[in-house]
């Protein structure tokens, strides 16, 4: 009844989890920070799915977003700058029973972790990857990130950023073997909840770019979008994210988009004037590396001893 395997059902019935069961330490993010809403959406998703806290691992890198594991009452791994994804992949590689969340930021994921980002997408291991993109380095105090808009004033570019920002969606949609790509804004809570739930349900790497408010260092980055809802485009489709009419009415623009259509997804991602909201791409059949890396799990010591003897036989003279 909770979407878990039958053999766990008895245990699940004995334990019912409320949001409190997933809430860790008191968050220390700034007032008005978009991270708080994302955290709540994760807590809600865990509660709705009744995931076992001891089987849940929140992995992060370094930065404001990466404090998230401390605010979960599950297992957590607050790792190194840029390295959340390799660590999360390693956790999953031999533990298919664990439910993995990754919290990372625009600097953590797209800059120092850029190489891992591309490859983790291709590995397509079952995990939910949320990129908290506020277009700035927050924790180290207002340095330019890969998604900082043109002419934005930062401490590393005090005369204004001169390079156009990286488009995380076009990069992501250019990687082979991706399976779930979505984009949301942190201030549309119903859509965010729906997308994060779909991402969590998806078997494979769910990549969600969340355009997120930083009221201290990059207010303009999100405010320009908040103030002009015409810049957002809600994607609708029977195979996409289902939201009710009240949510749809928040958007001036909507478009029917089949999430299996990668070419259309790439065109939508390319258009900088209109930010697509919802599910851009979904392929439930992409190869999952966690299924490959779990090979041989559960082999007994006797079988391993026999296997080692066979291996030694190859070198016997």
């Amino acid at each position, binding site marked *: 009844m909770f979407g878990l395997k039958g053999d766990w059902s008895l245990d699940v019935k004995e334990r019912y989890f409320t949001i409190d069961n997933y809430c*860790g*330490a008191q968050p220390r993010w700034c007032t008005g920070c978009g991270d708080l809403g994302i955290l709540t959406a994760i807590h809600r998703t865990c509660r709705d799915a009744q995931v*076992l*806290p*001891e*089987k849940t*691992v*929140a*992995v992060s890198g370094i930065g404001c977003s990466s404090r998230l*594991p*401390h605010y*979960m*009452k*599950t*297992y*957590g*791994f*607050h*790792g*190194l700058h840029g*390295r959340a*994804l*390799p*660590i*999360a*992949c*390693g*956790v*999953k*590689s*031999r*533990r298919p*029973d*664990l439910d993995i969340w990754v919290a990372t930021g625009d600097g953590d994921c797209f800059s120092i972790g850029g*190489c*891992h980002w*591309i*490859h983790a997408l291709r590995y397509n291991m079952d995990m939910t990857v949320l990129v908290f993109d506020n277009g700035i380095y927050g924790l180290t105090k207002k340095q330019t990130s890969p998604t900082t808009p043109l002419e934005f004033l930062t401490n590393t570019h005090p005369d204004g950023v001169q390079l156009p920002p990286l488009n995380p969606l076009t990069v992501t949609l250019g990687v082979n073997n991706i399976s779930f790509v979505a984009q949301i804004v942190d201030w549309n809570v119903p859509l965010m909840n729906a997308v994060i739930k779909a991402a969590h349900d998806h078997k494979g790497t769910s990549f969600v770019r969340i355009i997120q408010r930083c009221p201290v260092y990059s207010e303009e980055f999100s405010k320009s979008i908040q103030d002009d809802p015409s810049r957002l485009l809600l994607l609708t489709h029977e195979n996409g994210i289902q939201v009710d009419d009240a949510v749809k009415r928040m958007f001036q623009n909507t478009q029917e988009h089949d999430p299996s259509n990668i070419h259309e997804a790439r065109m939508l991602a390319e258009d900088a004037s209109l930010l697509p909201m919802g599910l851009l791409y979904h392929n439930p059949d992409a190869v999952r590396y966690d299924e*490959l*890396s*779990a*090979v*041989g*799990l*559960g*082999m007994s*010591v006797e*079988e*391993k*001893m026999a*296997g*080692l*003897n*066979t*291996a*030694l036989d*190859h*070198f*016997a*003279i």
Partner: protein
Amino acid sequence: MTQAENVSDTKYLFKRDETWWVKVAVPRTLREELGYDLRRSLHTHDLEQAREARWAVVEELRAEIEKARQEESEVSADKESKVVDIKAAPPETKKGLQRIDEHIVEIVSDSGEGAQKCGQSFGAISGKMGNGVWTVEIIPAEIQPPPRQPDGASGNRIRFGSKYMTNMGNEADLVVAFNEQVLYSRIANSAYKPGTIVLLENMWADDPFEAIREQYRVAVEQFREMGLIVHELPMQQECLKLVADPRKGKNMFVLGILCHIYSRDTEKALDEISRIFAKKGEAVIKPNHDLFNAGYDFARENVEYRFEVPPYEGAGDKPTVVVNGNTAVGLGVMASGMEMVAMYPITPATSASHYLASDYHLTGGFVHQAEDEIAAIGFAIGASYAGKTACTITSGPGVALKTEMIGLAIMAELPLVIVDVQRGSPSTGLPTKVEQGDLLSSVFGAPGDSPKIVIAAATITECFDFVIMARKLAEDFRTVVLLLTDANLATGVQPIDRPEVNEDWFSAPPDQSVWDKNIPPYDWDEKTGLSERPIPGMRGGEYVLTGLAHNRHAKIAYDSATNQEGADMRSRKLAVVAASLKPPEIHGAAEGDLLIVSWGSTMGAIQEAVDQAIAKGHEVSSVHLRFLSPLEPGLKKIFSAFKRVMTVEINYSDDPDAPLVTDENRRRAQLAQLLRGHTLMDIDCWSAVPGHPLQPGPIEKVIIARLEELKEEASCSA
């Protein structure tokens, strides 16, 4: 430059009672008559004058040796027999077998001509016949360098004999070369000596290109001048009788030649050929058998060298496996129960992962080829965190990239095994060649205080055993264990006792029982620093691992007391490891004039050199360290019993006589630095970065030179 020359330029020179003498080694075959070496005084106390004067004397002494050689071959033809060139008439009668204790054989060719396969097969056949064997690959840096280039030499060196072999030995006794150019790089590596027999492909003498014919002619002349005994053999021509393209197949013809020369069992040899071509089927096995037989018959008719190398005592008593150090590491990973190796390709470490990629499934394991070195260790750390202690196999530059992650694993107290197959030089350096340059960076190379366990394998057997030990240490002490091997061990092939598979080696599945909520995730025992670790899946153990300073509850804490406590606890674990170790064994007497201290792959060569020096009446011993962090106990006491203590290592140190170098500013070899700090004793060192393994002969010279210095110092102070 040879290793001995690095000490200072005293080549051929030695000092006795203030007077400089010249000494020239006598080839093994003439030692009965002339002794071990020929010596002559230069009647001068001045080193510069001696350096000037030595060459003429060296020439005279060499002429004496050459004269003796000629007389020897005339007088007793059965001692030093000669090959009759194919152009000359074949010999009427065969000469008798010569019984020898050991020989070093090299097979060198251009890349892709199969010399390595020939060498490996010859090593395996010799192992099957009960010889002690050590095989080393001769590898060019490129995959297919241009043909006939000196630095393109590809092949094998096989040292085999009637004793257990621990190293590649000194100069080769017999070489088979597919062209003359590849021999130049081996000569530059001091691989040969006057008297080394060279069986050389002679097709180049009739090459259509004048330039090649000339190169060949000049080379043969030069080789002969150097004292190599060159026999030109029509290998190509003979192979053409059987195959259209002898580039494929000449190696088996050569294997036949070698098997005749060294009286190898042809049944065993043919079996070995069947085994290596088993996958390709009878259509490939048959022509290779034919080539082998042709080579064997050719040698019987045309090559008069015939040796017998008896098996060593004890050989054949135990089941044996033939492996190189990297394969041993791979097998060790499988035996350790670790189910995950995350790696990124890097020479010379990668072949360990290649091996695992083919056989790891037999023990339920998986090789993850990551997108880079950092991701590889990150992946391993993730698996370790989730209760599946993992391993990452790399080389020095890879370890450098992993440094931040190593610090994380130490800070967060995660078990992790790192294998560093050391290569040469900083930066990209010498990717395929050996060095022991990663010791200090292994022990100290991370920001802050990051204590970890560092161990080094001395033998191929230890490459296997130490991975098993590393996994256990990593888990018991909840820390990083870095295992150092090197390119010498990685590519050295040897028959070793087959490990008896033991149930205790394998790790148990991760604990998934309920965790007592009252126990924090870092419940440090004040005395040992040790604590139990909750593993994801354990209900009640939920905690957030962080690389930030943290308290017992894994909560971020920047206060002074917590940071100090965490650092204390992490370090205390090493004190526990140290307390559990025994002092190292001393090779030789427990007191004397000189003690050689070593670590890693040099043990075999150093002990052989020490034994030779002891046999000549010198008071020298050696001690070999396996644990580098923490160091094994009792070193100060052991060192105190010797007049001088000196490390011998394959890494950089300043020559004490180099310009501007003083005793105060001299940069010493890495173990010497570690030991000086550890013992506060004046530990001397000799080290070099030749890019090839240390050999017993040059080490013995170093030992004797240091002992003479000691005598001199003693007489000065007297």
